[in-house]
């Protein structure tokens, strides 16, 4: 019985712990570092569910009927949780506590290719019509859709004003005067993240660090970088900003 008590306590602790962990991520907004905004409701339901299920272990030993006790012990025997399993289930909580939450950044790009405008190797094939937003309201994904839908983007866009935020990524092919401003696009969760980037012309590129979030104001100029021809964003200002509440864009 003693061990059953411990078993139940450990199970309840794990379930409630996971629930509280999800809840803490929900409250401090870092849940957006992991999943698409539209699934946050599911997480909220899971928080309640996990806590409810966890609490159900608490009352189990107050069930006095002989019948129940008998079948309960039989039941426990089948679902005994070893310490290793308990540790494994606690792993998300442990990692969550000891590794400070951070959205995907430049290092995730080391094994993903960044989609830069007309680069033919893109993972986001949706060529929906460019949104109706005015040019300074467009985010990186909106611009990127504009590139996709207009084959003559390179000449058409020249002179249009741009105001976007994203994180800095130093593309190895770029020289000293250019960098990428990038955002990840997430359909479900970070597992399917793909990166979109715009090429930015800025003389003191070297002083910017990878992963620094910046707001860039500027205009489009025609440009050619490496082997591709595509619009380059000539920046008038590059201002460091905080990581936005929702670091990813949702298609």
């Amino acid at each position: 019985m003693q061990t059953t008590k411990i078993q139940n306590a450990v199970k309840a602790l794990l379930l409630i712990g996971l629930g509280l962990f999800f809840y803490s991520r929900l409250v401090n907004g870092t849940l957006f570092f992991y999943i698409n905004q539209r699934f946050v409701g599911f997480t909220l339901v899971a928080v309640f569910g996990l806590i409810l299920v966890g609490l159900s272990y608490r009352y189990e030993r107050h069930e006095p009927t002989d019948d129940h006790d008998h079948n309960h012990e039989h039941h426990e025997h089948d679902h005994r949780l070893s310490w290793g399993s308990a540790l494994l289930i606690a792993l998300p909580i442990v990692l969550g506590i000891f590794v400070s939450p951070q959205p995907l950044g430049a290092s995730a790009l080391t094994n993903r290719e960044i989609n830069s405008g007309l680069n033919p190797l893109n993972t986001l094939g949706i060529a929906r019509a460019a949104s109706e937003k005015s040019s300074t309201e467009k985010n990186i994904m909106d611009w990127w859709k504009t590139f996709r839908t207009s084959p003559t983007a390179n000449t058409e866009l020249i002179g249009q004003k741009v105001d976007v935020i994203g994180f800095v990524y130093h593309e190895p092919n770029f020289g000293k005067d250019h960098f990428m401003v990038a955002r990840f696009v997430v359909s479900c969760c970070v597992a399917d993240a793909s990166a979109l980037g715009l090429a930015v012309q800025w003389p003191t590129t070297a002083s910017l660090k990878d992963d620094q979030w910046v707001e860039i104001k500027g205009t489009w100029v025609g440009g050619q970088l490496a082997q591709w021809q595509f619009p380059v964003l000539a920046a008038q200002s590059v201002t460091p900003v905080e990581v936005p509440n929702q670091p990813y864009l949702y298609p």
Partner: protein
Amino acid sequence: MLTNKPREVYPADLSLDTTAPKPIPVTNPRSRILRWVLTSGLIALVLAALFADTLTSGVGKAFLLQRFQTFVTIFLGIFIEAAPFLLAGSLVSGLIEVFLDQSLLERYLPKRALPAALAGAMLGMIFPVCECGVVPVARRLYEKGLPSSVGVAFLLAAPVVNPIVIASTYAAFGWGPMLWGRVIFSFLVATVIGLVFHLAKSQDILQPRVHIGHAHHQHEPTVKLGLSARLHQALNTAGDDFLDVARYLIMGSLLAATMQTLVPQNLLLAIGRGPIMSVLAMQVLAFVLSVCSTVDAFLALAFSGIFTTGSILTFLTFGPMVDIKSSLMFLGVFQRRVVFYLIVLPLLLTMLIGIFWNLNVGI
């Protein structure tokens, strides 16, 4: 379809193995130590893989930390995304345990091979669950005496042939070959593989810890209990199931996150161009990404501009049946060699369908 004929001898092979060692008690210290070693070995392997790659390229410690950070973010992303669905499946499992009378299954489920497999593939319409939720439900139904073929067909079909996934696929693609192709082909593949397992006895394919007929012990006392006590028991069962399957989900998420941190994705996409290679590439991608079936249609939509139609269809049928996290979770239900077949058969069948589509219907 040709590949299936020889496979049908498989259940006969299985029945030879009835002398296999019977349930090792879970409390056996040796098995516990083994599990411990395997688990920590897996974690060590994950870490080693992460470190090796960067150490050999000679980049600094900060970069290494960044990469670990990426790994953790992806791991938590997959886990947080899947946990609500696993919990939902566990709750359904708990309710089945308490409220579903075993005789109901025996009375209403068809006995003959084909109708049984078809019924299994249709069960998803009654229990709408994704590939995480389906595992505890299938296991519980097995404990209630579900025949092997019905369970296998259910396990493979339910993540697609259910109202929620059909709705999300419709939202992404509208009416068209993607929607009906996905549903019909998933249904067909699941039925065929269910048929393959028709002759297998449940106890020969299931993990020893899944107790078939377990419900018999519970049946009588359950009836005597009041509604609140039964609900309470359902919650307890749900908790046990959640924790049990969560272990496999977490190991699967760890593996998937490792692959995602190390495998260059776009290389894969660059290789996958032609009518045949694109199908293989999308299968590997579906396996590695391990995205939930309720939402993967939106992801597939993103690929649809660049990839062949057949390969997208393969992604949509194969992905929900098999991916890194679900294959790990299968290990919580089936014996290892059965899991092997449950990975390989869908792989081959959906591959055939995708390639056939590309070559004969259109790209």
